């Protein structure tokens, strides 16, 4: 699996917002999904994931609901709020700008 890449500062929020923009998900599934979609390149540390989720929830960008998980146990599912959707747009745009800029220098 190799040493997981550290996430670029501040991008975890973007990843979380993007991930749950498709469907409500619980914490474990979010981590799993990011890992899978990035082809095992991005490993989300639990030490960062849960504080980030709670912070986003406090900011009102995502909201949580307790529902039954696929295993039948109660789990906390996170959904994007309207404000969160706006934030996602903003963060995506800013990420695109940043990565394009880095691209121009590196290539």
């Amino acid at each position, binding site marked *: 699996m190799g040493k997981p890449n550290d996430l670029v500062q501040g991008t975890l929020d973007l990843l979380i917002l993007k991930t749950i923009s498709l469907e409500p998900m619980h914490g474990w599934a979010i981590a799993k999904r990011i890992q899978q979609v990035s082809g095992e390149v991005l490993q989300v540390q*639990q*030490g960062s994931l849960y504080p980030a989720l709670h*912070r986003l929830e406090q900011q009102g960008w995502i909201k949580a609901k307790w529902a039954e998980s696929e295993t039948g146990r109660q789990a906390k599912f996170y959904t994007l709020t309207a404000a969160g959707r706006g934030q996602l747009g903003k963060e995506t745009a800013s990420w695109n700008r940043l990565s394009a800029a880095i691209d121009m220098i590196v290539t």
Partner: protein
Amino acid sequence: MRWLTQLRRRTEMLFRRNGATARLDDELRFHIEQQTAENIARGMSAEGARLAALRAFGNPALVREQAHDTWSWTSLELLLGDVRYGARTLLRTPGFAAVAILVMALGIGANVALFTLVRSVLLKPLPFADPGRLVRLYERSTFGDFPFNQSAGGVFAEWKKQSRSFTGMAICGYAGYNLSGAGNELPETVRAATFSSNLLPLLGVQPALGRNFTADDDQPSANPTVLLSWGLWKRRFGGNPSIVNQTILLDARPYTVVGVMPSWFAFPESAIQVWTPTYFKEPPGHMKAISQHDFRAIGRLKPGVTAAEAVTELSLITRRIHDQNADDSFVSVGANIRPLLDSLVGDVKTPLYVLLAATGCVLLIACLNVANLLVARAASRRREEAIRMALGGGRMRLLRQHLMESLLLTAAGGAAGLALAWGAIQWVVSARPDMARVEAIHIDGVAIAFAAGLIALCALFAGLISSLSGRGSQVLSSLQDSSRGSSAGQARVRLRAVLLSLEVGLTVMLLIGAGLLLKSYARLRSTDIGCITGNVLKMDMTLPEVKYKQPAQVAGFFETLLGRVRNLPGVEAAGYVFPVVPGDGYGGDHGFTVVEHPAPSRGEAPFAMNRWADPGYFAAIGIPLLRGHTFDDNQQPGHATEAVISQAFARQYFPGEDPIGKHLRAQGDKTYEIVGVVGDVRFAAGEEVRPMMYFALYADSDMNGATLVVRSGRDVTQYATPIQRIVAGLDRDLPVSDVLTMDQVLGRGTLDASFDATLLGVFAALSLVLAAVGLFGVLSYIVAQRTSEIGIRIALGARREQVLRLVLLSGLRPALIGLALGLAASAALAREIQSMLYGTQPLDAAVFAAVAGTLLVVAAAACAAPAWRASRLDPMQALRTE
């Protein structure tokens, strides 16, 4: 709308914290379960899968805390944690907590009480419209040097007519009435004042009931009208609003009640119970006189006019009157102005500020003491703190806890202090009803905010000092230091010694202040007033003119009464005087000339205090007759031609001459023959002896009041009731007022001094106790810290006396330094209270010596017990204890 949702969420987080914490735990557990399930699915054993999941997860406690940190209100939660922790540690040492809280309560309570007094009396604006522009107008007189003299009616009239600096000007006078009883009520004497009909509009005040005087009421020919005080209306008339437009009998004359003043209205002082119109009450001649300074003038400055400009203008007008009447020596040459507030509270200003400074000292001492106690606690908890720091406890966090502990102590102390202050203020209000603006004194929001500020300040002060002593950087040395067998670090001991020196220094200052005031009070009480004060009773009565129209009727009443009083068994002597007995105030003065002397140059006529007396007065009150004789018995109305002068009068105006047989011209150009010289009396304790002239009681045709003086060999108060019964037998409508013994008269005159000295004495005693407690605490602590060291010393052969001396010295050294500091500071500051001292120098050696002695004795006593305990240590025990 977003802030609204956020607000809702925040509120939710505030109240559902426990649930949220449980859910967070559940969420994290779910994560681990999922990971475990996945691991099992990959083919791990159940136990291996769980351990792998936990490993991957990291430190769950940390994750939980970090997630928790993102919630709102974390700082509040931390704060609550600190409060809980602080309260728990304090409860573990209830003795310490109780002492510290008590100390703070005394300090804060005294300050809040004094602050409330100072603010209510000195700082709060008067309850009148735009009070900043209200001023009291004075005449500036050069005869006798009265820069702030009362105004004469004629001068006031000219001011009012000519000046352009004021939007309005009103005049107030003095009065007193016999209020007759209706039905079964007793007649009583009421304190009264007069004011011109424009005073209330000038102040911006409306009567609570009824109306103000009209201009028509305010003239000599008007029907008599009166305004009642709220207190009198409630007490005497049952608060019945129908009193308006009814009549009451004042001096046996019917007055129509036109209104009732609001309860807070106390002008010019709180004892006033009825007001009548000035120009109605005073004879027109009096209101035109330019050299009878009998009124208080009030003005409202026009916007844009400064007090200095107004003074210049009024002075010019006054000067003109003076120059036009150069033959009258008692016309003032100028004018003066003071803010109305200053004129009402003038006398209490310095004492109140001195007392406020004293309570500030007490608070500082209390803070130092609590800081000292906290330092001691910090010392005994060094190891605990060192361990916490070694484990990674943040310094800020520890500092916060220190502050929180001291905040809890001061807050509890402050709450108790507020209660104390409330009680103290109730006491002051009841003990000093004579104080200016006493009706305005109560604890309000500002006083409570002040208390809160004090609490915060003290908490910060005490908490910071004790945390500064923490020296957190030396974790290792703390851990080593507190291991057995070595003595405590010296830094803390030194800090405590410095705090103690400061405390002792402040205590010395308070003690010296109190000592000076007490000594000057004792001096004041022991001044020879010039007459007998033991077993002498006085009472005032005024015969209403309506009923006693003829001077012969007045004389008849007084002679009959005197005869009956003298016949009471046990009464040794009795007599009359007017207007006041010695020690009861200035009374009055009058200009005079000596017929046998050359006429004084223009405008330089002498004046002297004047009294009226009957022949028996001097013997009754024990004023010695030095030369000649007292008034003859033939000094009846219309034929009173004799005068008696005091020794000071004879010395000043008849140097090297025999005054007997000379003549005085005074009292409306009548001539009196001097028949005797009597001893000097003082008009108030602590005042200089001044020249005084006595006229026969019936010298003035309109004489209708007098003070009866009775002396007995036994307890004289037992005659009060029989004499009042005799008076009632002669005239059942006549009230008798101010029935007092001479000792009470003098006590009333020195009430201020006794009040100030008592309060300052209490504060000083308080701080002495605090300083003693501080000394005792520090020394006990040092002894406890050095137990093993002392044990070793004794084991090695140190003698008990040596140990005793060692410990005593370490306690007495800060006390001695503090004493030196305090003496030096007092010497520098004592001058500030000079105006409150009588017959006592600010640098009174006896007081300084007594304070130094007291402090040394108390300090030695406080140090003795711990020192003695140290010298009795059993070395074996000492070395075993840790």
